[in-house]
């Protein structure tokens, strides 16, 4: 069978919370992401899956404008992404910041309200209440006044998620939200993400644990520098496609929940 034909989903860009066309990103002369076309569907949970160095995080960062791409267009709900920032929340890898920064947990969550409070508007009780509600949602309300340096890895990740929730966005982009977190945190995070989906929000997450893809996600986008396939888990998370994405680097045992092909 032809991998490309089965894998590609054709959806109208106007509905898509994130539509990427012809995106190429290069550090130096070697492209990390090459000419990727992918249109993510609304109200779905999609995993971005691929081997190490396949450009998963780079794709997200380039789509958000954190890294400047060499070429490509990115749109959100039919408009250039830059105009839709208010509807998009991003959860970076927690290792990307210095956790010895002088801030309390609540301060970090309040950063998610920046678009509302702007440069000088006073922070009011309802802002704090909103931040506390987000902390509650990730099970961290008891930590609001802790210094962030005292948190465990899993707690840090939950604080980052709470900050994204505070934005009250429609599209949530997460970079490896389950990397290096404890089982309780993983459960808490997936609970929140499924809750978002139930509210009709869109969740797109870079994901590295093949064993949990089937349980957690609705759709999979396979990438290895170029786009390999995008579609429902049952159609795309198959040994054939995984072979195409991972080449010889994938032991069969690692495929875990992959449907037998």
């Amino acid at each position, binding site marked *: 069978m032809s991998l490309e034909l089965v894998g590609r989903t054709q959806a109208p860009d106007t509905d898509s919370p994130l539509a990427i066309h012809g995106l190429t990103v290069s550090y130096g002369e070697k492209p990390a992401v090459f000419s990727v076309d992918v249109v993510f569907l609304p109200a779905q949970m999609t995993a971005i899956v691929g081997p190490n160095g396949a450009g998963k995080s780079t794709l997200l*960062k380039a789509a*958000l*404008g*954190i890294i400047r791409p060499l070429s490509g267009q990115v749109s959100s709900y039919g408009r250039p992404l*830059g105009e839709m*920032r*208010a509807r*998009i*929340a*991003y959860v*970076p890898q927690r290792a*990307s*910041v*210095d956790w010895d*920064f*002088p*801030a*309390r947990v609540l*301060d*970090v969550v309040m*950063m998610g309200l*920046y*678009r509302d*409070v*702007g*440069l*000088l508007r006073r922070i009011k009780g309802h802002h704090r209440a909103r931040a506390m509600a987000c902390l509650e949602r990730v099970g961290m309300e008891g930590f609001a006044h802790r*210094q962030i*340096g005292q948190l465990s890895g899993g707690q840090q990740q939950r604080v980052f998620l709470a*900050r994204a929730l505070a*934005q009250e966005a429609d599209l949530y*982009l997460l970079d490896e939200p389950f990397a290096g977190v404890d089982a*309780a945190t993983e459960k808490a995070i997936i609970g929140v993400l499924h809750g978002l989906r139930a509210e009709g929000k869109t969740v797109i997450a870079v994901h590295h644990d093949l064993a949990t893809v089937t349980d957690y996600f609705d759709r999979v986008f396979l990438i290895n520098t170029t786009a390999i396939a995008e579609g429902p888990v049952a159609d795309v998370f198959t040994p054939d496609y995984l072979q195409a994405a991972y080449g010889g680097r994938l032991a069969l045992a690692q495929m875990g929940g992959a449907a037998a092909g």
Partner: protein
Amino acid sequence: MIWDALGLQLGYNATLVTLGAAMLGMGAGATGTYLYLGKRALVSDAISHATLPGVVLGFIAMVVMGGEGRFLPGLMLGAALSAGLGLLAVTWLTARTRLHEDAAIGAVLSVFFGFGVVLLTVVQVMDTGRQAGLETFLLGATAGMLRNEALTIALGGAVILLLVRLLHRPMILVAFDPEYAVGQGMRLRAVDLAMMGLALGITVTGLKVVGLVLIVALLIIPPVAARFWSERAEIVVIIAGLIGGAAGYFGAALSATAPDLPTGPLIVLSAFVLFVLSLLLAPGRGVLAAALRHMRFQRRVHLRQGLLALASGQPVYEPLTLRLLRRAGFLRPDGVATDAGHAMAARARLDERRWQTLRSDPQFEAAAARYDGLTPLEEVLTADQIAALDRGLGLAGLR
């Protein structure tokens, strides 16, 4: 004399200069906090050294145009232009070449400063130049400073403080998590430029008082010292401003009593004293507090281990443990446990057994995370919960 200076009793001019230096220090401390938290502190060193060619060229230009070469705002403008050029060079080298920022800083700093020193030497050969006293811009001098100059400096510090207040939120967000800031639609280049612009403003304003060689210290030492006192960025900014202001005040006042000493080093040394005090005395992150906390913790561990050993009838060998047990009255001098010791040991053992049961029970997962071998279970669970736990242990009848 020193007390007169600190009490602002040395006349109108000296008072104005001291207050100007304090204002400058406040602006520098607050601005420096964002540089320090964003790990960009050394960029300001490149900026300050890059001012020298501008100062000298500004002087030459004003003399050539037939004006007064020492006119401070003119020199500041020259300094700002060449420092801006230096900043652009650092930014360009970092963005467009494979050089890291530290290498770019080193290159720009040394080239600009070297060029500036050559120009300075040339000017000092000229007649008008010799009397200009441009070399005081290297280390700062308040002696003979004009009233207007002092006012200019105070005004510069005040304007920068206002701008810091205006830009606080974006600068903190970018310093903590630049990727997320971009995701929120913030323009990283613009925020970065604003932050560096503030540092440039402080450098240029501080040229006359602190001098370009040491201004970086007034930007960095106050926030580093302030960090010992608080875990919240907005408080750190305020404390850094206060420390910087105090350093400027003390340094300038000292300088008024000893006109031969350059002012910059006196200000920086004042800042350093405040840094050492913070390092030693701050609660929380201070060295003494940390040592004290460590010692207390160590003693609690030893006492607990000693009690658990007593409970299981094991001998205690560690001298510190023995000493602590004796001092608490749990052990007689001959090493035999007292009644109180037996009672405490039994309590410790019960506590420990309850903890172990709790940790193996998934329904207490949250509480189990607080196990540290020291905290009594009563602080974590209610009496009812402990009773439930005891039923599981078969200890219900024990109490």
